[in-house]
């Protein structure tokens, strides 16, 4: 086993909304190149973690740090939101798909490359008027978008409005859009929700190929067939606290996790567990 090289370090993350504690001193790490799943019952605080991570919420306490491969660190809990995507290169998708519905599939992928295009001489007056070397950059961005469309099988729909796509295709497009940002970590909020088994299988393949290319993935998912088969590590939340953390097999058999999912008291679960072992 190699030395730990976490890409994401969350320490004592706390998020309060008034009196409600949505996340309570949560600490976990995500290894570079891994698929880390965050699971837990409804209302456990999973999406809140994502919202803290991507700057939609400013955490009440604690820290979230991204470490790039070159050693640069970005404290996400202090960063202005658009810098999280731009500099720390954290991309995310949403539980309820959020595409630019009236824009075409291709345009969705072009918007994702906004910062790169603007950075590469997009601010010169020539570029603003659509002349000069900027056009080459734009063409390269279209090529990058097309490569992703090929990968998610949406090239024939490239010029259709995103809102006109079927549900499964919208999910794939949202992932492709996030990947067009060329993130170091991709945060997926229930990517398998509403997919049929075949689409779910395709999603697994896609996520494995993204991982193989070196992008780390953070995954919120309810579909255990996805979680157990593709994740390298599982973090389990309940009522804003971490109740288990480890490889999928270990977490699956953890009595606390079973208790949280089945809604039994912990003592009871332990008792049940003990009873089973005695027999």
């Amino acid at each position, binding site marked *: 086993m190699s030395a730990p090289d976490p890409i994401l370090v969350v320490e004592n993350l706390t998020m309060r909304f008034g009196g409600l504690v949505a996340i309570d001193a949560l600490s976990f790490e995500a290894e570079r190149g891994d698929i880390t799943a965050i699971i837990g019952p409804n209302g456990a605080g999973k999406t809140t973690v994502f919202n803290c991570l*991507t700057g*939609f919420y400013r955490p009440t306490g604690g820290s979230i740090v991204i470490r790039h491969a070159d050693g640069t660190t970005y404290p996400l809990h202090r960063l202005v939101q*658009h810098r999280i995507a731009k500099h720390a290169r954290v991309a995310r998708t949403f539980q309820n798909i959020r595409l630019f519905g009236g824009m075409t599939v291709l345009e969705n992928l072009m918007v994702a490359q906004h910062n790169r295009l*603007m950075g590469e001489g997009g601010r010169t007056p020539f570029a603003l008027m659509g002349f000069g070397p900027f056009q080459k950059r734009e063409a390269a961005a279209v090529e990058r978008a097309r490569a992703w469309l090929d990968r998610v099988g949406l090239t024939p729909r490239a010029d259709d409005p995103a809102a006109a796509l079927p549900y499964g295709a919208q999910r794939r497009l949202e992932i492709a859009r996030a990947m067009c940002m060329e993130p170091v970590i991709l945060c997926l909020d229930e990517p398998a929700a509403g997919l049929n088994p075949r689409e779910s299988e395709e999603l697994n393949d896609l996520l494995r190929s993204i991982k193989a290319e070196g992008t780390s993935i953070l995954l919120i998912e309810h579909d255990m067939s996805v979680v157990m088969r593709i994740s390298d590590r599982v973090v389990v939340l309940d009522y804003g606290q971490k109740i288990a953390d480890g490889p999928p097999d270990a977490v699956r058999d953890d009595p606390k996790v079973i208790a949280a999912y089945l809604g039994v008291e912990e003592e009871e679960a332990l008792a049940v567990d003990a009873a089973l072992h005695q027999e």
Partner: protein
Amino acid sequence: MSGAAPRGMAAIVRDAGLAALIALGVGAPLLGLRTEPVGRGLTLIPRPGLLLSVVAAVFVGRILVGLFMAQRALRRRVISPAPRAMLAPPGFRSWLGRAAGPAMLAFALLLPFMPGIGRYEIDLGTLVLTYVMLGWGLNIVVGLAGLLDLGYVAFYAVGAYSYALLAKHLEIGFWAALPLTGLCSAVWGIILGFPVLRLRGDYLAIVTLAFGEIIRIVLLNWVGLTGGPNGMSGIPRPSFFGLPFSMAGGEGTFAGFFGLEPSPLHRIIFLYYLILALALVTNFVTIRLRRHPIGRAWEALREDEVASRALGLSVVAVKLTAFATGALFGGFAGAFFATRQGFISPESFTFIESALILAIVVLGGMGSQIGVATAAVVMIGGFELFRDLEQFRMLVFGLAMVAIMVWRPRGLVSSREPSVALGARKMVGAEHVAEGRG
């Protein structure tokens, strides 16, 4: 079709009979009887003929309406999966879409030299083009970025007053002052933008409305600078790149330089082409920006602000550039207005102007350049067309607006052209395009 028709027909006749009965009830006292002064008293004169013809008209009219509605429902049901565009031949539609722009441009370019076009028509053309330009400017803010701005006239006013002040006090010529007035308005666009960054929808609309009023009231009360309600007069007229328009003729004037007979029409025509050029610049810049990452960011913001933020768009930068760009063109139009009129006062910059410009954008179809231009022609031209109707002018105009919004709820040109495409560009239907909430 044949199965549904008889039952439908009976219902239609029954419905028409009911309508006729109501017409009879209402009409009998109102139309059926007429009071006539006879001697010292009044007599009632029955008018059964009039009453019967009205009732008959209601009956027949109601049947026709019923048949029309039934027909339409049927047609919808039969071809419901197909888009409504199928009703018109698709080839004709796309041909119309492609040809409309160049045709309108050619008409605008040739207008002053068409036979039968006099001073009044050119003046009207200038007015229409001013609103085309304002509509295109506001279109950036409302149509592309989806930010509902009810105070756009503020930037028009800033442009007009900054040109008047620059020209009168610093004696800067029109062409040198133009970029400065644009800059001035753009700065005010950013000043407005900052406090409203967090506001959305109705709240944004109210604050921008207030901003428009603040500017007007400041202009009204800062008598030392703006002349207050008396306005500013004697604003220098534009020259033809240094050659003034003068009735005297002679060396160094426009007419003298080109060896023409001096005519008051020269300046009118020059102003017409000036606003045409300014409007075309607005159009060109908007078209270019739409295909630039900035323009795409505006539209992304309109479609979904949360997703835009997750993709690393700086909402602050996107909103401020939209406000500033829109304000810039409003400022240019204002400078033109000031130099054309030679006199400006806060009277010209009331809320009704903002409402008119917004109506042009909404009527034209938010985001559509050709739609906004058409709407400006319809609105401003419509005002003139109905002038003969005197006090009923606004009534007829309002009815026409309601009719258009019922017929085309998302504006005259509601479909959106993609900014980039792998294959052929396909228009995006209005049902997919967001209206923007921020």
